[in-house]
C-alpha cells in the first residue's frame, strides 16, 4: 500500500490505574488506512471499537504505540480540524435549529456567517433535509436527526470521518436507506471513513475493508477485503460475492 492517511502501530490501551482494576481495551493494533478508504470495525461488544475510534480522533491517548493521521500527530490533526465525528446518538444541540447545528463546526473555524449559512444549506440539501433548516432537533425523526448530524460532520470537509455505530439506533428500513445515502456521500466527498458497526450486512455493503476485532483484549483478528464492484447500489446486496463475504465475516466473528 502506498501513502496512508491513518497509520496505527502497536497501539495498546489500558484503562484504570492500579493493576487490580485494569482493563486492557486494545492490544497490538497495527493498521494502515489509505486515503478514500471506507473501513468498518466490527467485533463483540466491549472489544474496544469505540476506544480505537477515540484514539484515532485524539479523544483518548493510547498507553502504548504510535498513531499518525495525515503524517501528523493525532493532536495536530485535531487542532487542524481534520476530523468529523458522528456518534450513535445524533448529539444535536437542542437549543439550535437544524441549520445552526450544521453551522457549528464552521462557526468554530471562524468562517464568515453568510458562507456558513450557504454551506450548511448545501449540506442539508445533500442529506435531503431541505425545508427543515429552521426546525429544532426534537421536531425531527431519529433518522432525520442522524442525517443532520452527518451533515454537521461533513461541514468542514473533514479528511477523516469517524462514525461510531451511527445507525445503531435506527430501524432496519431507515438504516438501509441511510446506508445508501452514506455511500453516495462517501463517493461525492471522497473522504476517508472509519465506521464502527454491529451489523455485518451494513459493513459488507459499505466498506472497502472490514476489520474484525476479537473480544477483550481488543486485537485485530482479521481484515477482510470487500471486493464488491464500485459504485455499489441496492443491486450489490443481491450479488453472490456479497453473501460470500458476509459469511466469511460471520465466520471470523464466531472466532472472536
Amino acid at each position, binding site marked *: 500500500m502506498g501513502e496512508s492517511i491513518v497509520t496505527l502501530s502497536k497501539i495498546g490501551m489500558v484503562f484504570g490505574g492500579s493493576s487490580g482494576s485494569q482493563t486492557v481495551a486494545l492490544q497490538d493494533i497495527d493498521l494502515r488506512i489509505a486515503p478514500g478508504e471506507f473501513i468498518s470495525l466490527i467485533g463483540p461488544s466491549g472489544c474496544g471499537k469505540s476506544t480505537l475510534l477515540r484514539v484515532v*480522533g485524539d*479523544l483518548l491517548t493510547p498507553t502504548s504505540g504510535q498513531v499518525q493521521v495525515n503524517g501528523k500527530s493525532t493532536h495536530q490533526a*485535531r*487542532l487542524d*480540524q481534520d476530523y468529523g465525528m458522528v456518534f450513535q446518538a445524533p448529539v444535536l*444541540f437542542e*437549543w439550535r435549529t437544524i441549520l445552526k447545528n450544521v453551522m457549528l463546526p464552521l462557526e*468554530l473555524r471562524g468562517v464568515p456567517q453568510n458562507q456558513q449559512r450557504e454551506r450548511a444549506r448545501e449540506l442539508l440539501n445533500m442529506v435531503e433535509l431541505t425545508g427543515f433548516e429552521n426546525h429544532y432537533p426534537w421536531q425531527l425523526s431519529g433518522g432525520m436527526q442522524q442525517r443532520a448530524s452527518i451533515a454537521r460532520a461533513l461541514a468542514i470537509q473533514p479528511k477523516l470521518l*469517524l462514525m461510531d455505530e451511527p445507525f445503531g439506533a435506527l430501524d432496519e428500513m431507515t438504516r438501509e436507506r441511510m446506508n445508501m445515502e452514506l455511500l453516495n456521500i462517501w463517493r461525492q466527498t471522497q473522504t476517508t471513513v472509519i465506521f464502527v458497526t454491529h451489523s455485518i450486512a451494513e459493513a459488507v455493503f459499505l466498506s472497502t475493508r472490514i476489520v474484525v476485532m476479537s473480544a477483550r483484549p481488543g486485537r485485530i483478528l482479521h481484515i477482510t477485503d470487500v471486493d464488491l464492484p464500485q459504485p455499489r447500489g441496492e443491486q450489490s446486496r443481491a450479488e453472490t460475492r456479497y453473501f460470500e463475504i458476509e459469511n466469511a465475516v460471520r465466520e471470523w466473528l464466531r472466532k472472536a
Partner: protein
Amino acid sequence: MNQIRQNLPAIILFVAGLLLWELLVVLLDIQRFLLPAPSVIWQAFTSNLDRLLHIGWFTTKEALGGFAIGCGAGILVALATARWTLANETLMPFAIAANSVPIIAFAPILNNWFGVDNPLSKMMIVAVIVFFPMMINTVRGLTLVDPTIIELMRSYAASDFAILRKVRLPNALPYMFNAFKVAATLSMIGAVVSEYFGGNRSALGVFITQEAAQFRFQNSWAAIIVACVVGLTFFLVILVVERLSIPWHSSIRNRAGQ
C-alpha cells in the same frame, strides 16, 4: 380567546372563592380583626391606594435590588465554581447545606449591619436568600452536560471558552430560569418578612405590622394583597421571558405544543 377558555376554570374558582369568603364572613358574623370580608379589604385598598402604591414600590425596589445582587453573585460564583473542579467539590456541599437553612432568621443581624432604615439591609437579606438556589442551579446547568457533546466539541478543537459559550451556558439556561422563578418568589417574601423585623416607615412589611398593631387589620390585608400581586407579577414576568428565551426547551414546547 383560547387563553381565556383555557384559564376559565381557574378564573371561576377564584371568583367563587371570593364570593364564598364574603358570604361566610357575613353569615357567620366573623369579627373583622379575625378575617375581614373581601369587600372590606377592597375598601381599605381603594381608600389607601396612594400610600399602598408608594410603600409597595418601596419594597418592590428592595426585592428587585436583592434579586439582582443575589442572582448576579450566584451566577458569577457558579461560573467560577463550574470552571474549577476543586472549587466545585468543596463549595457545592456547603451551598446545598446553606440553601436549606432559614436565612430569613439572619434578618435582625443584617438590619444591625446595614441599618434598620437602610433599604440595603433588606436587599442584602434578599440577596443572600436567592444566592444559593441561583448558584446551585447554575452550577448544575453548567456541569450536567451530555459528555458526548463535550467530545464532539473537543473533536473540533474547541477551546474551553467556546465550550462554555456554545454548550455550557445554553445548557444552563433552563436550570437558571427555574432558579429565577424560585428567586422571584423568594425575593418578595424575603423583603416583606425582613421588614417585619423593623425598617423604613414607607416599607410594606412595616405598614402591615403597624396597622395590625392598631387593629386596622383590613389595611394590613390590603397591603398583603399588594405584596401578593407584586410577587405574582414578578413570577409571571420571568415566565414570559423564559418562554421567549428558551422556546426550544421541553418544558416550554410541551406547554405550547397543541
